[in-house]
Each structure stands twice: as structure tokens, then as C-alpha cells.
């Protein structure tokens, strides 16, 4: 049963052929067996999951209508607020934080009758590219347990890859869905900024953060998008229906786009590992056979994306994370001498190194006297990158490039070299700066049998097109069907 896609499982449950309770039990059986090795979850909610699964089975048996994800076991990254379990952001400062409300994306999953099995591990406050910055747990890559799953949505990616759920929600600020999807050999979609409500997503870089699905297939990603996409009055930055109507992403998914042009940026992609480049070229060949025309596009400012990102994201983070001060909730230092110490000691004790580094970076970038040179300059670069994308999309339907320069790296390999770590996101960050959607789909393996991802980006709110282009490739290849061999399997 765990070989099924989420869509196949959903169809089976809805038709009464498969019991959600059985599927959910099977997931928890796998969690029992493999989670001690993988470490994908910060918390699971077995009782609630089994109860909801039984309820779905009961309603289907009695002929009642159920939601579009009825009975499907899914995971949620632990930076989305839930009224069940803790919402920790993998940080000691929120280790015991129980949110009084559900994030809109979580509400939508529940309304679709999904069965949430647990909260997935991540880099603390989504700051990182390997999930090694989790303040609470280490997640490993199911393909090679000495390697990282990527990050920051490493728990979500590992859980999907190891079949510890059928699909998951992640969040992507600079590549945090796409890069772990690539490292773990699953599909990961970062929607257009404003497509999915951020309400209840614990903010890291507010102008960049976006929730999206990690799934086994493009079709499952489309199914998840059908549930989470759409306007939310609680999020002023979520786009209203009149401006960008949400469509049924499954409806035309199997219709190929014809004819279409793929934009590539050769000199930019040249920085990637040879095996990654090779897999990419092979993917291009397949698209050519499907009738696509490859065209080179110029995107002159991509080289500045990482610099701009680390100013904008950290500036916003320094402000977003100011609230974790030990006064109202979260970790509070014991025996402070005065209220200033409540702040300084609580924060010093509970934030991890990378979080502190980014808070300091961002605070500096916003300080008077530096604002113009850093923050304002970064915003200008961001606009130039946006223009690069608009200009490129005049010439092509989508842009393709690697997701990450390498496949999954060794645990501990880059932890002491933050700049090297930041470079893992070199190909993904631009989409966040420009707000465009991007997807990572499995497109090969390196000589260690580690997955390689192909990144596709389209203009804003063209997720339907993006998914269709990805689906064309998926139908021609079997990369997405490859599974990691887990110990004791």
C-alpha cells in the first residue's frame, strides 16, 4: 500500500477499496520501524490520526461526501501552527509552545479530510539548507543516512521519501522545499508568493516565505495545491481570486503544453557539479523529444541573488524573531535580574548559532547608517532580478536549471562553513526574490545513487502550466518511482 501515490490512495479510499485506517496504521508501522533512523518527525499524533482515519472510513461507508484528500496520511512542517501537538520551529525557544490556532494551510488540509500524522523536522526557524540547524533533532537522508536530507524542509522531504507519509507541507524562503526535495528524490513545489496563505506559518522572511507541497509525484503536488491554494482574508499578501483565480490543477495536468520554449542560463548553471549538469542535459533531451525548443536567456543579476537574499531575509527575520523574548510565551531564563535580562538571557540560551547569526546580520542591515547601503540596495537588486525574469519570460514559457549545485552532502560537512552552506541555495533563491513559482522534480542519480533534481520556473501564478510541464517529463521517466532502500526493510 505504501507504494501508492497520494492520489491513488485517495481514489482507493474514496471508492471504498482501501481503508484509511489501514493506510494510516501502515504509515505508523513504518514510522515505528524507520523513524528512529530517519528522524523526520518532531512529533506525531497517532491517536488523532487513527481517529480521523476511522471517521473518514465510516463516512465513506455510510455514503457521505468526504473531502478531496480524505483519509490520506500527510505530514506538516513544524513551522505551521497547529492546535494539536507543539509548534516548535525546531527551536528550543518554542520547544513547549502550543499554538492556540491552526495555520490556514493546516485548516485546509483538515477541511479536505486529510489525516495529519505529525510535524516534520526542519532547520531552526527554517534557517538552513541541511536540517542540521534543528535545535531539537537530526534528520538524515533516506538514500544515505550519513548524508543530510537538505533543508530547511528536510523532515518533510525525508518523510515523503521514506514513505513515512504520502505527502507533506513544507515552506520555502530561499529553496527550503525544492532543495530537500532534490536531495531526497521527491517532488517539491514552491508556489507563487501570495498563492498560498501564510497565516499561521511562523515567519522567517515574510516577503519570501511560501508554503508548498512535497510529494511523490507531480500529480500529488497538483492535488495538494488544489487544497492549499487560494485567497485568505487573514493574509493581506495572499492574492485575491479576481487578480489570480485558482484553477483545478489536476484537470488539465495530463495535457502537454505545445509548442513551448524552455529558457536556460548556461553560464549560471555551469557552476553545478558535473553529474548534476549531465542529468540536466539528459532532461533537456527528453523535453526536446517532446517538442520543446531550448533557448538561452540572459539573467544578468542572478549572481547577486544570494547576497540580496541574505540581506532581505535576515532583515525581516531580525524583526520577525524579536517576539521570542521570554515575556509572553516560549523559553524564559531562570532568575533574571531585570526585564532586559529576561530578553537577553532567554534569547541567548534558546536560539541556535545560525539563528543568532542571521538575527545579527539582519539587525545590522537595518541599522541607521547602513540601511541604504544594505537593505535598500538589496531591494534594488531584487527588482533587477524580477526584471530579469520578466524579460526572460518574454522569450520562453519556463526556465530550467539545477535545483542545487550538488547532491546531498555529508552530515557535518558544511556546518562550520556558513558561506559554503549558503551556496547550496544559489539556484533556488532567485525564484523567492522574484516571487515566481518553482518546482523540483527527480531527474537522475549520481554515481552514489543519490537523487538529482530538475528545477522548473514559470511566471507568477502559472502553477498550472508549471505542473503540466513537470508532468510531461514525469510521464516519460521513472526517476520519481525510485525509492531509497531503508535498513531493516
Amino acid at each position: 500500500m505504501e507504494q501508492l501515490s497520494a492520489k491513488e490512495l485517495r481514489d482507493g479510499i474514496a471508492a471504498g477499496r482501501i481503508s484509511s485506517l489501514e493506510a494510516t496504521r501502515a504509515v505508523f508501522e513504518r514510522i515505528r520501524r524507520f523513524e528512529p533512523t530517519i528522524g523526520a518527525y518532531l512529533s506525531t499524533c497517532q491517536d488523532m490520526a487513527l481517529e480521523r482515519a476511522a471517521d473518514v472510513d465510516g463516512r465513506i461507508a455510510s455514503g457521505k461526501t468526504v473531502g478531496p484528500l480524505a483519509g490520506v496520511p500527510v505530514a506538516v512542517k513544524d513551522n505551521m501552527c497547529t492546535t494539536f501537538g507543539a509548534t516548535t520551529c525546531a527551536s528550543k525557544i518554542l520547544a513547549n509552545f502550543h499554538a492556540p490556532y491552526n495555520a490556514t494551510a493546516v485548516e485546509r488540509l483538515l477541511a479536505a479530510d486529510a489525516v495529519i500524522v505529525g510535524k516534520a523536522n526542519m532547520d531552526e526557524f527554517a534557517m538552513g539548507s541541511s536540517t542540521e540547524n534543528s535545535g531539537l533533532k537530526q534528520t538524515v537522508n533516506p538514500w544515505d543516512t550519513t548524508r543530510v536530507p537538505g533543508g530547511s524542509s528536510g523532515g518533510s522531504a525525508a518523510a515523503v521519501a521514506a514513505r513515512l507519509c504520502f505527502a507533506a507541507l513544507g515552506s520555502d524562503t530561499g529553496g527550503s522545499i525544492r532543495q530537500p526535495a532534490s536531495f531526497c528524490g521527491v517532488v517539491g513545489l514552491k508556489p507563487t508568493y501570495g498563492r498560498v496563505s501564510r497565516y499561521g506559518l511562523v515567519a522567517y522572511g515574510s516577503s519570501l516565505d511560501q508554503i508548498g507541497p512535497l510529494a511523490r509525484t507531480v500529480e500529488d503536488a497538483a492535488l495538494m495545491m488544489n487544497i492549499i491554494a487560494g485567497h485568505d482574508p487573514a493574509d493581506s499578501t495572499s492574492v485575491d481570486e479576481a487578480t489570480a483565480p485558482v484553477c483545478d490543477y489536476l484537470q488539465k495536468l495530463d495535457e502537454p503544453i505545445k509548442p513551448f520554449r524552455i529558457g536556460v542560463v548556461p553560464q549560471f548553471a555551469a557552476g553545478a557539479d558535473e553529474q548534476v549538469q549531465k542529468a540536466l542535459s539528459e532532461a533537456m533531451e527528453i523535453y526536446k523529444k517532446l517538442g520543446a525548443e531550448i533557448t538561452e536567456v540572459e539573467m544578468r543579476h542572478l549572481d547577486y541573488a544570494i547576497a540580496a537574499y541574505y540581506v532581505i531575509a535576515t532583515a525581516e527575520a531580525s524583526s520577525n524573531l524579536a517576539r521570542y523574548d521570554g515575556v509572553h510565551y516560549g523559553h524564559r531564563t531562570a532568575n533574571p535580574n531585570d526585564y532586559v535580562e529576561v530578553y537577553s538571557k532567554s534569547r541567548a540560551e534558546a536560539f541556535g548559532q545560525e539563528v543568532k547569526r542571521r538575527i545579527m546580520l539582519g539587525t545590522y542591515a537595518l541599522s541607521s547608517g547602513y540601511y541604504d547601503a544594505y537593505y535598500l540596495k538589496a531591494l534594488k537588486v531584487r527588482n533587477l532580478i524580477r526584471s530579469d525574469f520578466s524579460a526572460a519570460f518574454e522569450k520562453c514559457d519556463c526556465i530550467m536549471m539545477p535545483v542545487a549545485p550538488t547532491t546531498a552532502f555529508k552530515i557535518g560537512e558544511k556546518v562550520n562553513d556558513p558561506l559554503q552552506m549558503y551556496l547550496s541555495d544559489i539556484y533556488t533563491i532567485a525564484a523567492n526574490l522574484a516571487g515566481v513559482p518553482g518546482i523540483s522534480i527527480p531527474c537522475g542519480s549520481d554515481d552514489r545513487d543519490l537523487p538529482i533534481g530538475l528545477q522548473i520556473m514559470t511566471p507568477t501564478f502559472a502553477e498550472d502550466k508549471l505542473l503540466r510541464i513537470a508532468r510531461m517529463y514525469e510521464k516519460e521517466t521513472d526517476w520519481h518511482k525510485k525509492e531509497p532502500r531503508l535498513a531493516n526493510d
Partner: protein
Amino acid sequence: MTNVQYKVIVGLEIHVQLCTKSKMFCSCAVEFGAAPNSRVCPVCLGMPGVLPVMNRQAFEYAVLVGLALDCRIPMFTKWDRKSYYYPDLPKNYQISQYDLPLAANGFLEIPLESGGGKKIGIIRAHLEEDAGKNLHTAGNFSQVDLNRTGTPLLEIVTEPDMNSGAEVRALATELQRIVRFLGVSEADMQKGHMRFEPNINLIITKDGAEYRTPIAEIKNLNSFRALERSVNYEVRRQLDEFLETGQVMEMGNKTTRGWDDEQEVSVLQREKEEAHDYRYFPEPDLVPVELTPEWLQQIRSRLCELPLQKQMRYVEQYKLSDYDAGVLTAELSTAEFFDEVVRDGAEPKRVCNLLTQTGLKIANEKGCTINNLGVTPEGIAHLARMVEADTVSSSSSVSIFEVMVETGKGPEVLAEELNLIQKSDAGELERIVDQVLAENPGAVEDVTGGGKKSKKARGFLLGQVMQKTRGQANPKVVSDILDKKLD
């Protein structure tokens, strides 16, 4: 003795709490005096993951004030985060407006005691969210009440155009009248709906040379009295300090002072204006506000005649005294009531007397506004016309007004019931006068005889007529008849 002259320079920062039903960025009720932390939600508590949603009403109220202050209203404004750590600020940043306020470059005209008005420049007005309150009532720790957190505040900054404590007070009072007239704030000082921070310094001329004293900002004043007195105190203090130390304004020597209401002194809080870095940056969780001409027009249509305009019109058009016109325009409800009575055709001066001498007195006693007394403008217009037509006397109109409030009956019915209708029918009164004269030949003789008894006798005869008519005779008419008969 050296020759010292000085000029007072004051600019004012005012925070006005807008009377929206819900808070600035969430749907919690704005309520005063509720149990601590009972008017809060994840958004105003600054919980992880929450997002603000702008209260359109608050924005419109703020723009309306901007229009009333003759400000330029930009079609594009945005929100910014202002960062500082304080326990009453759950996010440790305040959503405010930094470089693109929703209103700028206006003025407010204040009435001067010497008569006439003076324009005070308005630099800017912007919206922001209020913080909560720290309570220091418990032992070794403080508590925080976040009910007030997120309440919409309009911050208005004036030019340093005021030159005395009285002018500062006049501006504050005038602004209170304006926001009440516009219906955008209750402006209740007791509830902290208006808070003031004056910036004061002096230009001193001594022996022909000019000196500027260091600016002092007095924080958080919440009464007109404290505002005026603190400015006056600060003027004396700065003069004394200058004469003693010669200290003049320079970069970074602005001080912050607090006002001790008991001792009536200002107290130094911060020696040097720290270069406080609020690290402003655009609020990424809110979209900028783009006004359309239609939306702005819709807001503009809610502008009414402003209190000072109205006051001046009453003086010019109705020949009311400035004082009376001021009383009538102190509250919008009074002014509107007055306007309606006048529109019903009553003579303005008469209506003014009825309202200021009787109506407002009763309203005050009852602790309500004049429109809530249970009397209609038509009723009062009718009463005014009865006085006008001598149907009732001025003094009777007071009792009629009072009973109208008590019973809700109309003035005509009450005048009958209370036997307060004046007899002005000359024919009928002449018969009664004749009767009285016939009954009191002695008094008639005293009057016609002239001499020192004459005046008293005449008064006696008038009194007899009034007695026979049980007070309902119009004394003026009776007097005229007596004059005619006894000449």
C-alpha cells in the same frame, strides 16, 4: 540688570485613539476597562505565525482627520515596522508609518484669547497601533495587560508654531472638538484617548544677542491642564536655567522630561536624546494602501462644518456672543441640535438662551447630551416661538423646558396645564385694569398725585392686576394700559 526678552516655541505631538469597533489589525473589540487580557487574540498577542489585516475604518477615520486639518493626502501610503523591546509590545515592533504618512502639510486654526484665530502648521499625521500597559502592582515582578494592544492611534505632529501654554491648550482643545465633530474619536481624556507630548524651547534675546535654549520634550501628558501647566513651567525653568548656566541648544542635547502632576514640576527622564535606532523598514505583512479618487471622495463626503467655522458663523450670522457660540459648538450634538431648532424657524438668539441656560444645564445634571433629553428640536423651536410671541414669558419657558424633559409633552400643552399662558389681549386686560382702579381709588390718587408715593402705588396696582390674572397677564401690556389710564 541686563535686558532679557524671550519667545516661547512649542511644537506638539498628539496621539488620538480612534473610536473604531475593532482594533487596528485584528477583530478584537476596542474597549476600556475590561478585565486584563480579555480583549485579545493571537494577532494582537503577537503569537508566532499571525498576520495583521488593516482596519479600513481606522484608515478612513485617519484620512478624514487629515482632510479636516487641510493636509495633503497622498494616494499611496505604506506601513513600516518600528522596532524596540518593551514588555507591553508583544511583537517587539510596532506597526506604524515612517516615511510615507497618510497625511502631511496641513494646518489647524485655533481661536486666540485676544479674539481672531491663528494657523498652526501640521507636519504630518499617521496611523499606528497602540501598545499594552505594564502593571507594577504585584510584588517582585510586573504584569502586562494587552487589551489596549493594537488599538488604532492617530499621531499628529505640529510645526513649532505655538508661542504660549495657552496656545498649546487651545490647539489641544480645538483638536478634541474636531475629532469629536468628525465622530472619529470620543477624545475622552479620562480614558487616555488623547495624549500629548510638547517640545519646548525659548529664543532668548539678551543684550542684543539671540540664544536658543535646549529643547525639552515632555512625555505622555493626558489632560489639558497638565499640558498647559507643564509648558508654562518649562518656560520658567528654561529661562532660569539659561540665566544660570547659559546652556544653549546644540546637537544631541535635547532632553526628555516627565510631568509630576502633584508637585506641578517637570522631571528629567533622559539627559541626552539617545540616538534611538528604531530600525524602521517596510512592513512585509501588509500591502501598501492605494487610495482611489472615488475612495477619497467617499471619505471627503463625510467632512462636516468644523467647530471653529461653525462658531464663527454663529457669531457673524446669528450675532451670538463668541462665548455663547463656543458653548454651542463645544459638542457636535449641541451644535446639531441648535442648527435644527434654528432650521425650524426659531430666532437663534432665543434658541441659544434656551439651550445654554436651560437645556445644557439639565443635560449636565443628567450626564447626557442635549439630543438625549427626550425633547425634540421641533418642540424647542415651538417653545422659542411662544416666548417670541409673548405667549409665555422668558421665565416661564424655563419651567416649561424642565417639564418637557420630565414628561415628554409639548410646550403648548404644558403652558396650558401649568397656566403659564400670558394674557396679552389688551381688551380683556383693560377690563381687569378698570376693575382694579375702581377697587383702589386711594392708590389711583397716589399715582396721579405724583410725589414719592406714586411709584410704589403704581407697582401695587400692577401687582393687583397680576394677582387677578393669576400671573398670566403680560406685564408689559398691563403696564402700557396703566400708563394710558393714569396719565
